[in-house]
Each structure stands twice: as structure tokens, then as C-alpha cells.
């Protein structure tokens, strides 16, 4: 396991470097002058030159790239032009809110997906299966930007059970987490159903049944555990959708996380902050993906060998 861990960590380095490079390239190579964008078309040429110099944009590209990577290595992401504060500091402040939302969304997804998937997978073709999978296909299709307002109308404005926006305790977390987690719940439920159906036909399930376990007991005691491996893989793959979902969800519910910081930075043409936020999102995804692989390896020892 330790050797596997080391190998995975080592494989992280080129991907991280690639992510940093692509982020740099998007900000610095894509047409469009960030300084003119920041100061406006009518800015005095002298101001543009001064700003460009201040941000180091008048240096050769390779030099900029070098100091960007050097800064990254020590956690220096430059200074935000709109907040006039270090980008890294702003990100550290907002990051916990995003992680909290993502974790809550994942929890919601799992809490919905497991009952649905088990109901559907234990009797495929039955009424429960039809209902669960009907919910799943609708859950996948309703976009965050509609589900969020819909939940707000229902639970905040009509029933007045839950607060509308902001981040102030558990009650504020419920609607954003539901908005974020529903699509993932639907995907997980479908996956769990498929793997349960596949597992049902295996030899060890026949053994479990023939030693006298009921169908349901056999499925939960023996089938579920084996079906889990593919679910863990899907969770890893869907982390990307979950993370970029936080971005939209934060905008809907005025949740003070990294996503709102990024969209605000885009509006303010604060390119160092845009760069920092994009990089943080991507790196988080890369690290989470690796963590899922490790969980997978822990559940299924066969993975560690290849």
C-alpha cells in the first residue's frame, strides 16, 4: 500500500505542473489585454505602461512563467488587483466554505442514492425500480440553475422553512447542498443499480443464497460491498461535476466560497485572482481524484498491483 501511495504521489507531479502551465497559458496567451481590460479602453497610455510594469507583464513571457512557478512553489499567487491583498490569503479564507458545500452535497448525494439504488437494483423491472430510475433521469436533467431557484421558491418563500441565501449555520447549508447533490445522487443511484444487477448473477451470491440467506440479506451483506467499488470510481469521476457545481450553487445562494470569489474576480477583471482561483479548483480536483484512487485501492486490493 505504501509503495502504491508513493507511486500515485509521484504521478501527481507532472499533472500538477501541466495544470499550472495551462492556467498560466489561458491568462497570458489568450488574445485580449488584461491591463487594457482592467483600466478600460480610454485609459492613458502612460497608465497602461505603468500598470503593465507593476504587474510584471512587460517582462519576457518565459521570465513571467518562471517567477509564476517559483511563486507557486512557495504558495505566492500574486496580489489581487481588486482587493489589494495577496491572492493566496483570499483563497485560504474562502476555501473552507466551498469544501463545506461540496462535502454536504456529496453527503446528500449518498443519502439519496443508496436507498434508491438498492430499491432499484434488488428488483429490476419492478415498480420500485421504475420509480427510482424515473427520479434519477429527472434528477440528472434538472440543471442547478433551475433546481436552486425552485427549492428557494418552495422552501424559503412559500413554506418559509429555510433561509434564502448566505452562510450562517446548518439551516443555510440545506438548500445549497440539495441543489448541488441531486444530480450526483441520480448518477450514483443508476450506477449502484447497474452494479447490483451485475453482482446478483455472481457465484458468491448464489453461494450466499444457497446457504439460506434471503435475497435481500445476501444483497446487502455480500452484494453491496462488491458493488461499492464501481460506485467509488464514479464518485471520483463525478468530483469534477461536484466542484464546478459548487461554483454555480454559490452564485445562486450567495454562498461566500471560492466560486463566488472567482466569478467576482472575472467581473472585476482581477486576473491574478482569476488565475489563483482556477488553479485552486483544478488542483483540488486532482488531489481529490488521487484520494479516491487510494480509497479504491484500500477497498479492492487487486488495484494496488498493476
Amino acid at each position, binding site marked *: 500500500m505504501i509503495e502504491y501511495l508513493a507511486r500515485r504521489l509521484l504521478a501527481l507531479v507532472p499533472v500538477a505542473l*501541466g495544470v499550472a502551465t495551462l492556467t498560466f497559458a*489561458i491568462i497570458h496567451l489568450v488574445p485580449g489585454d*488584461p491591463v487594457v481590460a482592467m483600466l478600460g479602453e480610454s485609459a492613458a497610455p502612460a497608465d497602461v505602461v505603468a500598470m503593465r510594469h507593476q504587474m510584471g507583464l512587460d517582462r519576457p513571457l518565459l521570465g513571467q512563467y518562471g517567477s509564476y512557478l517559483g511563486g507557486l512553489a512557495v504558495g505566492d499567487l500574486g496580489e489581487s488587483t481588486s482587493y489589494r491583498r495577496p491572492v493566496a490569503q483570499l483563497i485560504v479564507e474562502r476555501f473552507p466554505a466551498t469544501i463545506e458545500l461540496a462535502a454536504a452535497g456529496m453527503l446528500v448525494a449518498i443519502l439519496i442514492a443508496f436507498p434508491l439504488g438498492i430499491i432499484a437494483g434488488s428488483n429490476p423491472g419492478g415498480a420500485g425500480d421504475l420509480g427510482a430510475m424515473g427520479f434519477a433521469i429527472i434528477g440528472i436533467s434538472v440543471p442547478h*440553475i433551475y433546481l436552486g*431557484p425552485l427549492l428557494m421558491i418552495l422552501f424559503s418563500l412559500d413554506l418559509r422553512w429555510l433561509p434564502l441565501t448566505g452562510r450562517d449555520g446548518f439551516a443555510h447549508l440545506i438548500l445549497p447542498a440539495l441543489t448541488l447533490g441531486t444530480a450526483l445522487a441520480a448518477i450514483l443511484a443508476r450506477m449502484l443499480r447497474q452494479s447490483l444487477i451485475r453482482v446478483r448473477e455472481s457465484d458468491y451470491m448464489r453461494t450466499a443464497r444457497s446457504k439460506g440467506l434471503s435475497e435481500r440479506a445476501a444483497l446487502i451483506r455480500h452484494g453491496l460491498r462488491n458493488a461499492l467499488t464501481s460506485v467509488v470510481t464514479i464518485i471520483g469521476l463525478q*468530483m*469534477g461535476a461536484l466542484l*464546478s457545481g459548487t461554483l454555480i450553487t454559490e*452564485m445562486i445562494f450567495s454562498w461566500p466560497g471560492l466560486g463566488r470569489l472567482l466569478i467576482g474576480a*472575472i467581473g472585476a477583471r482581477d486576473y491574478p485572482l482569476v488565475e489563483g482561483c482556477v488553479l485552486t479548483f483544478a488542483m483540488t480536483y486532482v488531489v481529490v481524484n488521487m484520494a479516491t484512487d487510494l480509497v479504491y485501492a484500500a477497498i479492492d486490493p487487486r488495484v494496488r498491483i498493476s
Partner: protein
Amino acid sequence: MIARGRNPSLSIGISIVVAIVLLAITGPIFFRTDPLAIDLANTLAAPSRAHPFGCDALGRDVLARVLWGARLSLSISVVVVTASLLVGSAIGGAAALAGSRIDNLVMRGVDIVLAFPGILLAIALAAILGPGLVDLAIALTAMGWTGYARIVRGELLTLREREYVLAAETLGATRSRLLIRHLMPAVAGPLAVQATFGVGGIIGAEAALSFLGLGALPPTPSWGNMLDAGRAFLLVAPHLTTAPGLAIGLSILGFNLLGDGIAQKIGHRA
């Protein structure tokens, strides 16, 4: 021979998709209200006979805007999926056929693009390129091509070892004949499934970007920016979010079901 079973996903999916495409094409022809005409007397008007879906904050007809939004949404999605399909297939095909060194390099590149979760890459690109439909299409294509590249590469690598391909090769089939007659038909199925899901995905991504102010700019009617504008009036005029929200949801549902149906039909795991 597999018995021809029922395939409700396919039939429901086709019905929804055909209905939406027909509405997008003919809707603005039959329902001739101008989606941009401002009428402040009808600000936030509830649905009525003259305005079946009501009016928005500027008194513009919501039905007209949803119909024009359908044109925008569908055309952007088709353009982006076509471009992604072409770019992705070319890159994936080249990787599979060019030998392992180039293959390795290309696939590392794909990994790096995929390290940007969901629509993040499109958001970053749209932020730098600026809002606008062409830039939006470029940003979405830059995000979308990797899936097709992976499929084409993966399929070609396994197909190359298949007996019928080896047989054709032994019989002296030229490279292009091999590609067109033997390899492309086998890749077409999985690509069709991916592209169908892709249209639904891009409809959602376009709506999300426009919602964030990074796609279609007002006053151009787009489902995403209609939803964004409607959020301020959730309590007094919920129809402003309901109409575009249902339009997005139904379209994605239609393409998802169609994708499921095609996958079932050709016996491909979705």
C-alpha cells in the same frame, strides 16, 4: 440474435428532441411576438392569452424569448458538439495511429485538460475571451473535445487487434480503406452516443455560462440569462424562472433519454 425488446428511452427521447427542434425552428414563425420588444405596461405580467408565459421585468414576452432561446441553445450545442467531435476524433485518431510516443504525449495533454473540473475551463476561457457567442462556442469546444478523443483512441487501439481488421490488413487493404470501411463504422456507434449526451451537456453548460454572465449577453434571449434575470423576482413572478428552467430541463432530459436509447439499441454501455 437478440430479441428486439422495448426501448422506451429511445422513443420518448426522440419525441422530446423532435418536438424541441420543431419548436425552435417553427415557433418564432408562428408566434410572431418580438422577443426584444419592451412594454413597460406589462412589467412582470402573469401568463395571459396575449402572453401565454407572461412577461419579464421589462414587459418582454417570455414565450417569445423561450422560443428564440431554443434556437440559440440548440444551434450553439450543435456547433460545439460538431466541432468537439471533429477536433477530438482527429486528435484521438492521430494518437492511436501515430505510435506510442505521440500517443503518450497526447493522452497526458488530455489528462491535463480533464484536470479542470466540469465547466471550469470554459469559464476561465470565456472570462479571458470576453462574453459573446463565438467566444462562448470556442470556450465550450476547448472543454468538450477530450471525451471524443478518448473514445476514438480507445476504440481504434482495441479494434486494431481484432481479427477482422487483421484479416483485411493481410488481404492488402490500404490504410484509408481500412479506416473508412472497417474502423470508422465501429467507432461511429460509441461516438453517436457520446455526441447525443454531449448536446444535452452543452445545453446545460451554455445555460450555466450565460447565467454567470459569461455567455449570451442581454438583451439576446438565452435560457441561462433569462433564469439569471428571473431570480430577482422569484416571489412576485415565478414564471420568469419556470419557463426557461423547464425548457433547459426538458431539453437535457430529451437528449439524455435519446442517448440512453441509442446506447441500448447498439448494445453499447453508456
